[in-house]
Structures are given as structure tokens and as C-alpha cells.
């Protein structure tokens, strides 16, 4: 199974047609895949809070959005999540590369990794963690859940899920 293709397939099957991204090495493959899909308007953002603003507008305009970003962005977007996405009750699937977990080569990434789940829990954001490739099977149900409840939902995807760094 190619997980990049599977993720893009699930986005399209759930009518997600507006995707904003701030890149991460782990996410390079899925971002490439999204770029290839005609059914998705891909709009790179310069910062993740900006990306969430774009998604909020797209959703009010009738498109289903998603954001793809790194877990360090949780530190950038707490205010936007609380005062825009949650306050106005908007759905937002967040596909997040979970840096600083097992098989991480860069020590500094661990410094945000240790806060990631605590921050998401503090924000009452439903959070799923993909550790094995087979975990991607739940993505379709998670996307349906997100647009059922109109909440931001986090999908943390760690290095093991993406196949490591060639270690």
C-alpha cells in the first residue's frame, strides 16, 4: 500500500477539495500526491494560522478543507483553534506529522513532541495517533467524524508510520 495515495484517495472520497499545507520532510510525499490530484485545490500557506484562516473561509464558501502541517504548529495555532475554528464551530481535519517521536534524528523536535498531546488534550481536540502503516485504515472514519461534529480533529502521524528516515 502507498500511504500517500491512500491519504489523497480518502480526502477525495470525503469530498475534501481545499487543502492548505506547511511542509515537513515526512509530509513531502503526501503533499506531492495532493498536488497531482485535480479534485483538490492545494494552497501552500506561509504559517499554519494563516492556513487555518484560509480553511475557515473555504468551508464557509462551501468547500470541505483540510490542513497538513507539523506538530510544532500546535504551538503556533492555539489561539486560532480556540477563537476561530472552535468558537465559530468549524470542521477542520489536521493531518499532522508528529516529529520528535521514535526514530526521530533531530533532538530539538522532541521538545515540542512532549507537549503535543497535552496541548491537544487541553484544547479538547479529538486526537488520533498513526504509528503503524495499517493505522491509516481509520482515516476515512476520522474524516467522516470531523465533518459530523464540526470540530478540529488531529491526526498525528509519526516517523514509524512514514517508514522512518532510512534508519
Amino acid at each position: 500500500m502507498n500511504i500517500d495515495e491512500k491519504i489523497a484517495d480518502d480526502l477525495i472520497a470525503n469530498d475534501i477539495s481545499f487543502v492548505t499545507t506547511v511542509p515537513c520532510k515526512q509530509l513531502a510525499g503526501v503533499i506531492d500526491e495532493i498536488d497531482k490530484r485535480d479534485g483538490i485545490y492545494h494552497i501552500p500557506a506561509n504559517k499554519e494560522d494563516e492556513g487555518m484562516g484560509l480553511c475557515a473561509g473555504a468551508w464557509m464558501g462551501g468547500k470541505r478543507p483540510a490542513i497538513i502541517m507539523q506538530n510544532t504548529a500546535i504551538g503556533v495555532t492555539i489561539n486560532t483553534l480556540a477563537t476561530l475554528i472552535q468558537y465559530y464551530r468549524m470542521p477542520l481535519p489536521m493531518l499532522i506529522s508528529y516529529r520528535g517521536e521514535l526514530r526521530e534524528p533531530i533532538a530539538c523536535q522532541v521538545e515540542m513532541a512532549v507537549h503535543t498531546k497535552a496541548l491537544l488534550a487541553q484544547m479538547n481536540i479529538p486526537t488520533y495517533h498513526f504509528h503503524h502503516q495499517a493505522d491509516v485504515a481509520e482515516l476515512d472514519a476520522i474524516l467522516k467524524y470531523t465533518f459530523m461534529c464540526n470540530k478540529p480533529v488531529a491526526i498525528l502521524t509519526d516517523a514509524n508510520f512514514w517508514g522512518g528516515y532510512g534508519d
Partner: protein
Amino acid sequence: MIRSEILKEIAPILRDQLVVCNIGIPSQELHAIDDQPSNFYMLGTMGLASSIGLGLALSQPKPVIVIDGDGSVLTNLGTLPTIANNVADNYILLIIDNGSYGSTGDQPTYAGRKTSLAKMAEAAGCDRVIECQAKQTGRVLQEALDARQMTIIVSKCESGNAKMPPITMDPVVIRDRFMKAVQA
């Protein structure tokens, strides 16, 4: 002219359009001057009005007018390259540039000193950028609507606020009636 005088003057133009309005006193002023279901008021999240408006313009065909401020654009400067590189000809960004952080006590912004937001928008790649004086705002805005071309307007005005009550409408109500106006 101060911002509220500009808003009063352009209210008849805004009335029939989708409007995304910046956090704080700008939203309070617009709400008090001419509340419409087609106005999306930001109650928090400084800086994101231009981004919300761009996402909206890219996702449906109706014209979208964003009323933003110099301080808010400065806090989300990455928005200008994103706007320039994702052209939506139904998008108008009206930056009411009073050279100050109006909602927090009129502290000066860098836009009121050496920094030109119009030149920054041009440098970001925005094709149609118009800087005007406050009293020309209505004419320039109507021309931008008629041109059906993505436009960034920087309207230079004096700093100062009208005394308006806070918006007490529930955010989900603001969002819901706005989405119905989008779909109407």
C-alpha cells in the same frame, strides 16, 4: 477622516456583498453602522481576515470584500504572497490604514512610519494595488468591484475610533447566517 467615517460612506456598497471584517473596533463599527447577514464579523484571531476572505473567494463565485487594518496585515504579512500567488478575481482586500493599532489604544504601527503596505503588496506580486486617500475609498472600491479583478486597496486615513457597543451575537449565529448569505 477616521475609519468609522469611511465605513459609513461605503456601507451602501458593502450592503449587497460578502464582507469579512477585521477583529475589534472595525467589526463593532460595521455592525453598528449597517449590520447584515452577509457580514462575517471576527470576534478574535487578529490578522486572519484577509486569509478567511481569500479562502472564501477561492471557493465560491460571489465577490468578497475584506475590511482589514494596517496592524492586522502586519501581524499576518505572509498573507500577501499567498494572495498574490492564488489569484481570485472576486477578491478585494481593503486595508484601512490609519497607521495605528486602533482597537488597543491607537499605538502607532510601522505602516504609519516608514513602511508602505501598498509597496509590500506589490513586492509580494499582487497585480492590482491601489493606494488612495480616505475620501476616495468609495469610488476606488466600486471601481474594483466593476473591474472584476483581484484588488488590494490601501486607504490612508486618520487614526481614531467611534464609540460603538461590543458585538454580543453568538459566533455560531454570525457564521450560520453568513453561510446562508453565501448560498443565497
